[in-house]
């Protein structure tokens, strides 16, 4: 579709209207049609009056769900905030870049503690709202919805969500800085007065992603990210994202 790389005219939009309604166009075409419709005053009757793909679903014989599904759904709803009703995000003050020793120093740790124990922040909707590709992130959405606690993590590199899943933990990058090709983010959990424990590495992707951590949050006082060349056993640089955990 190189000839359509930049825009579509009305005739081209009408030509693929049916495919568009059925979700059967390439991503570039989808974007171009959407952009065209946003600025075009032509009626485009085939789109306006067209048969939505939903009609095909209506033709299917209904399938009754299991009894358990409704119960599971209502339990999920009860702990899932709505986007428009989500409470304010509790932000953490970004860590000052004082070197790793300062990062782990008792004074710094007390400062974090004074800033407040980690809040359970209902951030699923906030995060999802920032992600245009939510519908492609089933695993992320589900993990957020089912997490026992969702913490906002901010710092010089951006922000993310730390999920306490009960059985473990995971990190969801939200607006993290891109990295050079030879760098990655490494996640750390740090016990009070102890050394950082490496719990995972990742590179930010184009869409929502879930980074399972090697260990759960219990017993740790701090979560942090550093930027490394490869997975290392001890941080080599300053933390770019930090969160003080409760307890």
């Amino acid at each position, binding site marked *: 579709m190189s000839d359509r790389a930049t825009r579509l005219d009305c005739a081209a939009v009408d030509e693929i209207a049916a495919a568009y*309604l059925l979700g059967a166009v390439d991503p570039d075409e989808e974007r171009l049609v959407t952009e065209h419709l946003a600025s075009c005053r032509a009626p485009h009757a085939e789109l306006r009056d067209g048969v939505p793909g939903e009609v095909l679903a209506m033709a299917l014989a209904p399938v009754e769900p299991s009894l358990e599904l409704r119960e599971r759904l209502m339990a999920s709803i009860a702990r899932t905030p709505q986007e428009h009703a989500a409470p304010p995000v509790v932000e953490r003050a970004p860590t000052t870049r004082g070197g790793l020793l300062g990062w782990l120093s008792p004074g710094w740790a007390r400062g974090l503690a004074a800033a407040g124990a980690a809040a359970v922040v209902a951030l699923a909707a906030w995060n999802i709202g920032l992600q245009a590709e939510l519908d492609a992130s089933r695993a992320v959405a589900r993990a957020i919805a089912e997490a026992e606690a969702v913490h906002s993590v901010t710092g010089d590199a951006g922000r993310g969500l730390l999920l306490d899943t009960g059985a473990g933990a995971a990190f969801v990058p939200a607006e993290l800085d891109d990295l050079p090709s030879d760098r990655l983010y490494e996640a750390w959990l740090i016990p009070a007065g102890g050394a950082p424990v490496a719990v995972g590495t990742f590179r930010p992707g184009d869409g929502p992603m879930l980074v399972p951590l090697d260990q759960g949050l219990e017993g740790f006082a701090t979560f942090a990210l550093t930027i490394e060349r490869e997975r290392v056993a001890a941080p080599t640089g300053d933390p770019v994202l930090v969160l003080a955990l409760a307890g």
Partner: protein
Amino acid sequence: MTDAPRDDALLAQRIRSGEQAALGELYDRYASVALATALRIVADRQVAEDLVHDSFVAVWQKIDRFDAARGTLRGWLLTIVRNRGIDRLRTTRPTIEVGTADEQALLRTGAAATADAALANISGAQVRAALGELPDEQRRAIELAYFEGRTYREIAVITGVPQGTANGRLRLALAKLREALRLGEGAPLAEGSDER
């Protein structure tokens, strides 16, 4: 399945206000058609139920984005179910090369129009009858598109026809459905289409 979601807008308002029972009503109303859709796409009962669960959760979370002027709550829900199902399919199957590198890009579900209010008074039986009137190749084309997430370029490869023919089959199929279901005045059939 309830075929006349006339009070979807009211239900959406109640969900938007945070009334969990309203979401339960939405589930009771459309869970069976949502599951039928998911099951048709992923062909796995447990996966399909997970998709339905996640889709209703998404409706709950994002209800503020729903615009009743653009379509029905049912249409929105089913679009979410369908898109999530297709996303799952696409993670587990190889892509089909259809020509240029641009065309090999990972597929994404189109934001199908939700101007579906006219469907509120149409029954599943009517839709099935209308689909039954379509030529096999046109019905196959729209099923590949909607239930399998194939683009018209991929449909062309799968069915062994030129892209224009595949696209034309989609156009003709929807035009015939629109006419059979009396969903509009009817746009002219595709000029240059090679099938009627």
